[in-house]
């Protein structure tokens, strides 16, 4: 018992002395988790993307075109610069801005007349940097809704609207081949629109102070339903990235510890241990315990930061969460011992441990969620204890499942850990004779 505690205390003291290991274990995972969490959707709201640079040239200067410009300017997706045509072309050509739009003179009148005469439709020029195809297609996709809402906004400028209606009426009356019934219908609806605008003149006057560019509502509404079990639980990309990154660095430090154990076995201090009345079981148990404590400290630090600074919440069961963490510590510690026992020499162990840990991490979904893998890889992933652990942590954090969701993963981790411990117990030679 005393020897067991002495070994644990020594290992922890040695570990705390090792600055590199400390940075690797506490600082790097937090930074990486913050970074990856940000990439994979942050705290569940809209992902914070950098705005796309967009140059706009308004050669029309009508209420409608100004409305479209305003619609783009008010959208945080774009960082809009309004300029003249030459400057706009120069900027895109120089690659300083990926996309641009030029609204031609007569844009708004032609837009309305284009409804009736397709050859009069205005031509909007889309400038783009060929290396920014994504931005180009995004802009193209947004062009129609922006023009609709922008023009509508412009049209709601009463004077312009009524003027357009008057011109529309003239056009309708002039169109000789239009069947009488349709002419009547169109004139009727224009009259209604005119009346609407007239009534609106009053309300515009009244609410002028509160006026902001109100977008016309789209004809449909998107109802997002992120599916988590607990009301109020929201997907948090950080929950997943902190789980994955802390496990990654725990396993990387376990490689170091496994190699360190073998280096220590070759050293004089190990001879002293062997000369003392100390059993192999006490030694292995002491090592496993100190490794598990080191692993635990990483999870504690990582999740403390995740919870206090990144809004990660344990929406599931705290008990389940702690159980998963402890099971992961047990698994990591026995993995280190098994790697040392199988590898036998420091070099061989490193050579063995690095691919094993990388596979455990990659297929376990520590870096990228495993659902994007091809199906046969996904099948293999199901066998990764690391994957069980990360899924179980997800279950207890943002998914908010109840404690029963971790029973199987925890049992699995404990079983595999025990198997690895057994391998270490059978195969670890502590005589430490080189090459024999």
């Amino acid at each position, binding site marked *: 018992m*005393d*020897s067991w*505690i*002495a*070994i644990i*205390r*020594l290992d922890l*003291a*040695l570990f705390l*002395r*090792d600055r590199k290991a400390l940075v690797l274990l506490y600082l790097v995972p937090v930074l990486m988790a913050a970074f990856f969490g940000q990439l994979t959707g942050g705290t569940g709201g809209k992902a914070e993307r950098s705005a796309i640079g967009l140059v706009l040239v308004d050669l029309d200067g009508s209420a409608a075109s100004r409305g479209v410009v305003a619609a783009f300017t008010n959208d945080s997706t774009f960082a809009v610069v309004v300029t003249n045509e030459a400057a706009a072309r120069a900027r895109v050509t120089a690659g300083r801005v990926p996309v641009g739009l030029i609204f031609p003179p007569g844009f708004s009148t032609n837009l309305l007349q284009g409804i009736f005469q397709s050859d009069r439709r205005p031509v909007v020029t889309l400038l783009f940097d060929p290396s920014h195809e994504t931005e180009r297609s995004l802009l193209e996709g947004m062009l129609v809704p922006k023009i609709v809402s922008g023009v509508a906004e412009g049209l709601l400028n009463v004077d312009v609207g009524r003027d357009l209606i008057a011109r529309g009426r003239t056009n309708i009356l002039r169109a000789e081949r239009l069947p009488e019934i349709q002419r009547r219908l169109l004139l009727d609806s224009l009259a209604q629109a005119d009346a609407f605008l007239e009534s609106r003149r009053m309300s515009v006057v009244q609410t002028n102070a509160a006026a902001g560019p109100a977008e016309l509502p789209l004809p449909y509404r998107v109802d997002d339903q992120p599916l988590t079990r607990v009301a109020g639980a929201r997907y948090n990309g950080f929950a997943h990235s902190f789980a994955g990154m802390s496990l990654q660095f725990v396993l990387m430090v376990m490689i170091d510890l496994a190699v360190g154990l073998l280096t220590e076995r070759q*050293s*004089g*201090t*190990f*001879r*002293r*241990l*062997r*000369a*003392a*009345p*100390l*059993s*192999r079981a006490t030694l292995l148990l002491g090592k496993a315990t100190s490794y598990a404590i080191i692993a635990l400290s990483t999870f504690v630090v990582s999740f403390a930061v995740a919870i206090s600074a990144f809004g990660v919440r344990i929406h599931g069961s705290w008990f389940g969460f702690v159980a998963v963490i402890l099971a992961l510590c047990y698994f990591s510690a026995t993995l280190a011992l098994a790697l040392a026992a199988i590898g036998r020499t420091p070099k061989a162990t490193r050579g063995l441990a690095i691919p094993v840990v990388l596979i455990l991490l990659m297929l376990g979904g520590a870096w990228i969620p495993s659902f994007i893998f091809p199906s046969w890889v996904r099948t293999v992933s199901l066998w990764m204890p690391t994957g069980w652990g990360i899924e179980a942590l997800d279950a207890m954090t943002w998914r908010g499942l109840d404690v029963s969701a971790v029973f199987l993963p925890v049992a699995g981790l404990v079983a595999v850990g025990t198997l690895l411990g057994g391998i270490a117990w059978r195969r670890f030679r502590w*005589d430490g*004779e080189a*090459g*024999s």
Partner: protein
Amino acid sequence: MNTDRSAPVVLAARNLVRRFGDRTAVDGVSFEVRAGESVGLLGPNGAGKTTTFSMITGLLRPDSGELLLGGAALVSDTDPIKRRLGLVPQDLALYEELDARRNLGFFAAIQGVGQSRIPEAVRSALEFVGLSDRADDRVGTFSGGMKRRLNLAAALLHDPDILLLDEPTVGVDPQSRNAIFDNIAELRRRGKTLLYTTHYMEEVERLCDRVIIIDRGRIVVDDSLARLRHRAGTGAGAELRIELEEPASDTLSGTLRDIPGIGSVRIDGRSVQVRVGSLAAGSSEVLRRLAEAGIAVRSFSAEPPNLEAVFLELTGRSLRDS
């Protein structure tokens, strides 16, 4: 000091054999050590000294043969009888990243010194080797000599009665070396049983009552120092050092080599070194021949019988690469 034949045998090796692959590192070694005895284990590199120690302390299992500690064989790794042994490993066995106190505290706990007694055990071990004032410094900052002293202290924490010292002064400056010798002499005075490996006959002469010479895994001599000295006195002769008034002539070498029973002759300017079979007869004959040749002698001295010569004679090998 204690060569009492009636003292109990505390350590016995019977026909120990240990192989590494097809190399036999220890090849049928047998010896006994009695309580309070101080035994030097002398041998060149690779003789099998460390391997023998490793078997005694349970680090290595012998391929065959038997080891008895206090009359009993080690039955398990946790055998409490191990507490009677204190090992000073040949390679420094310390955690450089930790301070001296923490190192000793750990080794004390591992040796089964109770928690409450550890601070006192550590304090007195540090005091014994004269490192009390460096107790809280990182071992990595110690000089080579200080590390060696701490390496010794780490073996003393559980107050073992048998000490296995594997080249405890290797690579150490004369000052620390003397400090360690003083420590070992003090341990001997306290009645500890010492088994001491070295490449230096002079260390054995200074610290031990008995010497076991081992070469290529076999024991070639196991005898008391007194008897070995006697053997050296008769068998290996003496070394004469003569300083002449004038540089030696070319013919002197031939003159001296003519003397019956003469060994090597080395002449360098005024200084002459001659090995003779027997001190009394050899020296008078050498001086007589010099007088006959009319060579004036400024000084004359005879070296005491040299035990290293015994080793050379017995093994045909030098103890160290010179």
